[in-house]
């Protein structure tokens, strides 16, 4: 078994990201065009200079034509990928591997989702024809089962745990309020968060990620060519992916206090990148805070906190914008919004801004560390996919 990774072989040389909001006046094609054009401009190349494309969209359309038509690409290879909420990350992963293989010099990954055309609340997927025995629960309900299980296992008082998860929402709204591209740009008080109407279990409205329309894109090339295009490339240190086999749903040993797919993915990512002490070596992390309790558990699965202690680290402000390890400095899914296929690349866009010192005075993190982690999950406790990238501004 080998997961060698492609540390320092590939660089991100340009990115683009639309605002993530309810774009009532923009369709999927508009979002694609806007993100792609911003990305081309940031590199200073035209679309013909890109040799191959990967499109990540969960439900925006099928096949590479969904990208080739709005961009009017001329005889380019375009692959549409889907991997639940890690779809955008998957597009980048495939583009990076394709360039690392030597097949192409330059590739673009673009993630996009138009969520707000359905007329329904939340995110909705249409399953293939089936026997009708599958769960029809919302993601909120599945994740809501984590809170009581976590509190019970680690003996955390329900009120303290409620305070900790509310603090996650408070922090991510604080960060999003300072980000011009975010969906929700208001700080929200702890009281408002804690008193919001319940959606599922103990999860209230403010415990759930925003649902937005948006697109984000990245262009990659070989690391040795990166400085032809930019003085400040981001080097890919690790790309790790784990697709769960659903065993958590059927295995009585699974206790809903951890996401084993993510823990395994983290170990692989840190090995690829040569990271031995993530909480001391990583400058910032963009993680998949689909629900507040999810971010809490991720702090442990990503080895930022000891088991059973993330709630205290959160309350101590360790993951705040100017804490020891800022988590979701751009506002996260919670406040930046979650257009499924775009979110993974949006996280990398924040790493791009922060590690290059371009996040703006309002929200630029202060650190001498050079590594960022982005993490995407898709699915539910017991049955999920996990993606982790580690990006760095320096080689080596």
């Amino acid at each position: 078994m080998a997961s060698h990774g492609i540390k320092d072989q590939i660089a991100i040389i340009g990115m683009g990201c639309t605002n993530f909001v309810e774009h009532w006046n923009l369709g999927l094609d508009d979002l694609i065009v806007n993100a792609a054009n911003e990305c081309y401009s940031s590199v200073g190349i035209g679309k013909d200079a890109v040799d191959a494309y990967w499109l990540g969209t969960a439900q925006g359309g099928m096949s590479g034509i969904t990208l080739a038509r709005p961009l009017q690409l001329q005889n380019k290879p375009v692959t549409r990928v889907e991997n639940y909420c890690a779809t955008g990350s998957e597009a980048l992963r495939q583009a990076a591997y394709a360039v690392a293989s030597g097949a192409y010099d330059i590739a673009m990954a673009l993630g996009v989702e138009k969520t707000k055309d359905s007329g329904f609340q939340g995110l909705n997927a249409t399953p293939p024809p089936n026997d009708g025995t599958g769960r029809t629960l919302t993601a909120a309900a599945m994740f809501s089962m984590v809170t009581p299980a976590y509190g019970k296992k680690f003996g955390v008082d329900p009120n303290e745990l409620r305070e900790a998860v509310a603090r996650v929402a408070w922090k991510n709204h604080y960060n999003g309020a300072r980000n011009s591209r975010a969906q929700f740009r208001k700080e929200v008080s702890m009281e408002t968060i804690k008193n919001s109407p319940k959606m599922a279990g103990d999860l209230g409205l403010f415990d759930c990620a925003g649902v937005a329309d948006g697109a984000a894109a990245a262009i990659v090339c070989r690391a040795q060519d990166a400085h032809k295009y930019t003085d400040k490339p981001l080097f890919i240190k690790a790309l790790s992916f784990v697709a769960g086999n659903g065993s958590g749903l059927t295995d009585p040993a699974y206790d809903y206090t951890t996401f084993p797919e993510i823990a395994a993915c983290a170990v692989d990512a840190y090995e690829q990148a040569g990271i031995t002490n993530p909480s001391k070596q990583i400058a910032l992390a963009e993680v998949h805070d689909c629900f507040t309790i999810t971010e809490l558990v991720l702090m442990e699965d990503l080895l930022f906190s000891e088991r059973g202690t993330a709630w205290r680290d959160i309350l101590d402000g360790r993951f705040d914008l100017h804490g020891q390890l800022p988590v979701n400095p751009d506002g996260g899914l919670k406040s930046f919004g979650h257009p499924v296929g775009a979110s993974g690349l949006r996280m990398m866009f924040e790493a791009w801004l922060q590690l290059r010192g371009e996040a703006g005075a309002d929200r630029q993190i202060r650190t001498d560390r050079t590594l960022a982690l982005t993490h995407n999950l898709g699915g539910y406790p017991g049955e999920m996919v996990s993606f982790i990238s580690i990006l760095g501004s320096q080689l080596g």
Partner: protein
Amino acid sequence: MRGISSWGAYLPYRRLDKTQIALFVGQGGGKGTRTVASFDEDTTTMAVEAGRIALRRTSVMPTQLMFATVSPTYTDKTNATIVHAALRLDDSALCIDLGSSVRSAMGGLILAVRSSGVNIVASADIRSGLAGSSEEANSGDAAAAFVICDETDAPLAAEFIGATSATEEFIDRWRAPGSQRTKTWDEKFSEVTYAPLAQSAWKKALQDAGIQASDIAMVAVSSPSARISSAVAAKLGVARVLDNLSAVVGINGAAQPGVLLALLLEQSEPDQIVALVSLTDGADVMLFRTTKHLPLVQPDTTVAQQLACGAPISYGRFLSWRTMLAIEPPRRPEPQRVSATASARNENWKYGFVGSRDTTTGAVHLPPLRVSADGQRTDNMKDAPMADVLGTIATFTIDRLAYSPSPPIVFAVVDFDGGGRFPVELCDIDADEISIGARVRMTFRRLSITDDIPNYFWKATLVRTP
């Protein structure tokens, strides 16, 4: 000798307090309660539940299934085949629906005792009417099932002595197919018409059996109204008349003869003669003699237990469950139509709740898998029938967002005794009743209905003891 080997009666969990009706509608209702089938039940699922209770007390495998109802979920297509699939009967069994009149239920029992082989006769009904009608107030929902065979097939709890009928055409009560409203003529007309029919069939039954009314320990009378039942019963000359449950359960239409026969057997002693009289478009009488086996096959879920376990339902919710009152659903997509081909391939799982058990590790997979959990072996599995296995709630949640005809959804992760875990929706439960560690059993339900195709599968429900 032929007779009843085992039986089961099923009463849905919810009870409507009939005083609520007039408060809401301004008319109708009355005293007492009636049973109410849940939004996720139909006559087919209730017949399955009654059949499961009956089959748990016998070792025989029915070769013939008859299912009688006036409120079938399908027409054209057979509903009994769904009951057959959920009960996991042998593929060689004949399965037929009896309908579309109330009398078909009593007729099914008589046909079965006059037939051969092992029969299971199920009947179920969901009855209502327009808001504020006496039909709505006086009816109730229920199901019953009987395993009928020869004494050479299995020990008999009640031997069949004889059956007689009297038939007459008269317009008593009627309903157009598909209509929710049963219409009635003058009840007095019904009473005076039924009384002589009952007498005629009753006399012939006693005569054929060579017995007197005083030889009969107990009689149950099933009829469209409590008043007709008591008027007829009073003239039969039997010392004890079974309470027909009209004040707590209601009149059950096609299910009523079965429910009363089940209660009759529940309340009888061995070696007694008991009689069932059913008045629907005529009169039908059945006589049985109970045996020493009667106490041994008393169901694990009795009518008395189910009467003691019911819980109230508001009238508004009752109306919405019967599609008389449209309520605002959550703003989420409605369920898709189920795939006929996928359902057929997965019949054992979907209808029988059969998982797979790894023959090497013993691990149970729900739904069934071909490859073992460690990924090492393919097709190293055997069937793991889980429908009758109890479980414990490991964790749970309340989903206020997901689509449901009756939100919110109460959902739990269930660990089954002896292995196996399944995250599953709960039914017949109020959101504040659920807790970690609570015991649950599985029950067959209709999850949704799209394009006139019901989506049947299993839910969990709390194990309730009176």
